[in-house]
């Protein structure tokens, strides 16, 4: 089979991938500049600790996020219990919560000098001046837990979709072959969901490695700290770039190992014409445990931080009210919408290139375009500035050579820069989701459609789109929410006069004064919630249990 949508498709895919990878290339190129001195100094002093911390943090975050996300997904996909429909979307809400907000709220609450430990001391030892802590939160464990709390929805979302789509006859056949619920889970459902889990874990690991705000709050020095130190403290972009490049290499290595491990397996699921799933009802004691577990997760990851934000906002209302919130919100919305649109479009371009091309390197463009995800935001921003300012200079010299003066910074000085930066940062999410969705469509459908005389482009719109639309929608949503929250890149890449909610909040967050920015932070969360509500409606309307829409028509 040799399907091509257009002869220019591969060329275009590669061009796009290279464009999106240009900031990354700029960083790698920088890393070869000679700055061995600083690197050696770091290597001899703190770098081993940083590497250990980064590694331990990533492992811990991935482990905790998996331990939270997978059971949530499993319970909601496979069992019926009260409030299931509400938890189904409530568990996505933590995504709308910026990690720095959650980190602030919890350090503020749980640290040694925070209200909980203070009250404990007053209660238990009212006479002595408390000079000790009951527990430390500002450490690796605390940071891991925080990051896992905000990142687990990635794993939850991907795994839930995967469990939902698992053919019921597979589950049934495992059951009749003597597997109990637990065995069915770990011998069948879980291994089948491995591709989805791998995507989720990769996203979580990359987010963790790129995080700066949370580890800073929790006083954990990681490789990201090293990147910032070398760059800002020592003024060596080269050494900083080198450390970033090492981080990326580690991630690609992990992805490669996972891919290699399941190189022979193919997972086409029968998503078409499936019988309706009957979710078994949980018994009372199981119900209570389930509800308790889900409630704790929801409370800890969303409700509590959100309530604290409201409390802060209420306390500091007069200091923090700003009439320009609406403008900031619109700016945030505009950028986030454009970015999700572009990411989705690019994800599709790479996804289809991979699906339709026979080339051995067909997976490379998508991977190249995803490289930006693991770069710490500020480093990425510098990476974006390098090629953009070069292009701007080129344009301006061209004008000059023609005897007129140039248009100035049309790329790096406009909204283009910020959108470009965000797209690079988040296209990994879209590429991953599109890939995972397309992988579930059996190639026989392509052939069926082609033989029925549909062009590949029409096949894409008439066959694939309806089948993968849910996956695409989720991808666009994730990008949207992430773009609402993303900070460092926004700060450095925005044009004059452009303020978004995130940049506004950040000036308070950067000084650990979130109280003053709480009101704006609430707006970020609420604006992020709007698309989540659509998601819930969308997911529901495709389920047979909710036939109201159909009946009305």
């Amino acid at each position, binding site marked *: 089979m040799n399907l091509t949508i257009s002869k220019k498709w591969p060329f275009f895919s590669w061009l796009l991938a290279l464009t999106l990878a240009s900031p990354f290339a700029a960083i790698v190129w920088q890393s070869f500049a000679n700055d061995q001195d600083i690197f050696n100094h770091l290597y001899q002093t703190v770098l081993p600790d940083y590497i250990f911390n980064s590694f331990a943090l990533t492992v811990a975050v991935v482990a905790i996020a998996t331990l939270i996300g997978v059971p949530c997904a499993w319970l909601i996909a496979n069992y019926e219990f009260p409030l299931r429909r509400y938890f189904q979307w409530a568990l996505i809400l933590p995504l709308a919560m910026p990690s720095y907000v959650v980190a602030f709220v919890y350090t503020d609450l749980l640290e040694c000098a925070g209200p909980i*430990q203070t009250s404990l001391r007053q209660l238990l030892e009212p006479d002595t001046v408390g000079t000790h802590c009951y527990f430390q939160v500002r450490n690796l464990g605390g940071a891991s837990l925080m990051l896992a709390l905000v990142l687990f929805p990635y794993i939850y979302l991907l795994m839930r979709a995967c469990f939902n789509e698992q053919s019921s006859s597979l589950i049934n056949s495992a059951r009749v072959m003597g597997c109990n619920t637990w065995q069915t889970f770990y011998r069948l459902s879980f291994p089948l969901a491995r591709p989805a889990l791998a995507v989720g874990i990769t996203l979580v690991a990359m987010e963790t490695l790129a995080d700066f705000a949370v580890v800073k709050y929790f006083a954990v020095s990681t490789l990201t700290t090293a990147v910032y130190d070398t760059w800002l403290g*020592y003024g060596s972009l080269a050494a900083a770039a080198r450390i970033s490049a090492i981080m990326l290499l580690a991630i690609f290595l992990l992805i490669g190992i996972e891919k290699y491990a399941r190189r022979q397996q193919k997972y086409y699921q029968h998503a078409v014409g499936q019988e309706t799933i009957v979710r078994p009802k949980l018994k009372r004691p199981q119900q209570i445990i389930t509800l308790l577990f889900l409630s704790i997760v929801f409370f800890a990851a969303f409700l509590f931080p959100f309530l604290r934000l409201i409390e802060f906002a209420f306390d500091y209302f007069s200091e923090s009210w700003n009439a320009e919130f609406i403008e900031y919100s619109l700016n945030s919305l505009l950028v986030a919408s454009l970015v999700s649109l572009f990411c989705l479009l690019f994800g599709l371009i790479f996804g289809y290139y991979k699906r339709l091309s026979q080339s051995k390197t067909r997976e490379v463009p998508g991977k190249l375009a995803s490289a930006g995800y693991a770069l710490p935001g500020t480093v990425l921003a*510098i990476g974006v*500035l390098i090629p953009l300012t070069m292009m701007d200079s080129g344009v301006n010299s061209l004008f000059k050579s023609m005897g007129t003066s140039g248009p100035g910074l049309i790329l*790096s000085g406009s909204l283009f820069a910020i959108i470009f930066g965000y797209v690079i940062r988040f296209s990994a999410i879209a590429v991953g989701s599109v890939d995972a969705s397309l992988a579930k469509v059996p190639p026989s459908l392509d052939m069926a459609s082609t033989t029925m005389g549909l062009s590949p482009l029409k096949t894409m719109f008439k066959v694939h789109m309806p089948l993968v639309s849910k996956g695409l929608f989720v991808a666009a949503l994730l990008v949207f929410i992430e773009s609402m929250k993303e900070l460092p890149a926004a700060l450095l890449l925005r*044009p004059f*006069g*452009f303020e978004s909610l995130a940049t506004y909040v950040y*000036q308070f967050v950067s000084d650990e004064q979130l109280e003053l920015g709480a009101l704006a932070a609430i707006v970020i969360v609420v604006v992020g919630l709007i698309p989540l509500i659509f998601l819930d409606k969308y997911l529901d309307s495709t389920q047979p249990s909710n036939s109201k829409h159909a009946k009305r028509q």
Partner: protein
Amino acid sequence: MKKLVLLFAALSSFSVAAQQSVNIYSYRQAFLVDPVVEQFTKDTGIKVNVLFAKQGLAERLEREGEHTKADVVMTTDISRLMEITNRGLTQSVENKTIFENIPAHLRDPKNQWFALTTRVRNIYASKDRVGKIDISYEDLASEKFKGKICTRSGKHPYSVALVSSMISHHGEAETKKWLQGVKANLARKPQGNDRAQVKAIKEGLCDISIGNGYYFGKMLADKNQKAWADSVHILFPNQKDRGAHVNVSGMALTKHAPNKEAAIRLMEYLSSANAQKIYAEANMEYPVKPGVAYSPLVASWGEYKADNLEMAKIAANREKAMKLIDEVKFDL
């Protein structure tokens, strides 16, 4: 023709108004800069756009080169001022008004940068457990404070500046010993901001912390944080010898400033008595213009002796300071 180009440039970017304007790259939070520039706009009709970022503005400025839209850079720390100066991103400003307003030792000998305020690296001490004592930075490494000191990250620019001033006075080897001594005295791993350390004193986790003076005033003004400030004395270190370490916030004109004229007007304004007064009152920093009154609160702390160390030296020892902090693994 030039105007046409400017117009084109303006159209190509996001909402840059057609009226006369000045663009600032600010390492200071916008909400601290806004009150002053708003007053400026009111007085002159010149619009001011502030772009705040904590990191990377120097890189952006360098990459943008001659096409940059930024006219003025504002920083919170001498090292940043020196960084952009050393990278050749600034130009000198020879302006009588500014010279009159800002004393010579608070501006660059070649007039590339100008300090706007000075801030002292104070020591906060628990009222109950320490009291008003004479203290020096050197004392922080002394055995008697074992397990009693709290501080923010050693990598923070304020900490680094203090360490580099120590290097200037005592040399690297001595400073390294001092850093090790301070680290050994820490009640907890460096974490949080300057205010968080005072909070920790209030909660009894430590007795002594290091922090900039204006935070004391900010905490007193915040209803939830007042209790923290009430539990400590603000001390001026090394009053018996060289004086307290001071840092500056400042400004510089970018090399390719497109709105140079308006930018210099803004710089003049920032050094004027009006603006300095707002700085003094709102931010509780020490104004650089002689004769501008301190805020009543700051004044109540009394006169103090400042370390006369040249600003340039603090900036020059910055990298050495960073390395020492890494070597003793101060934050780990």
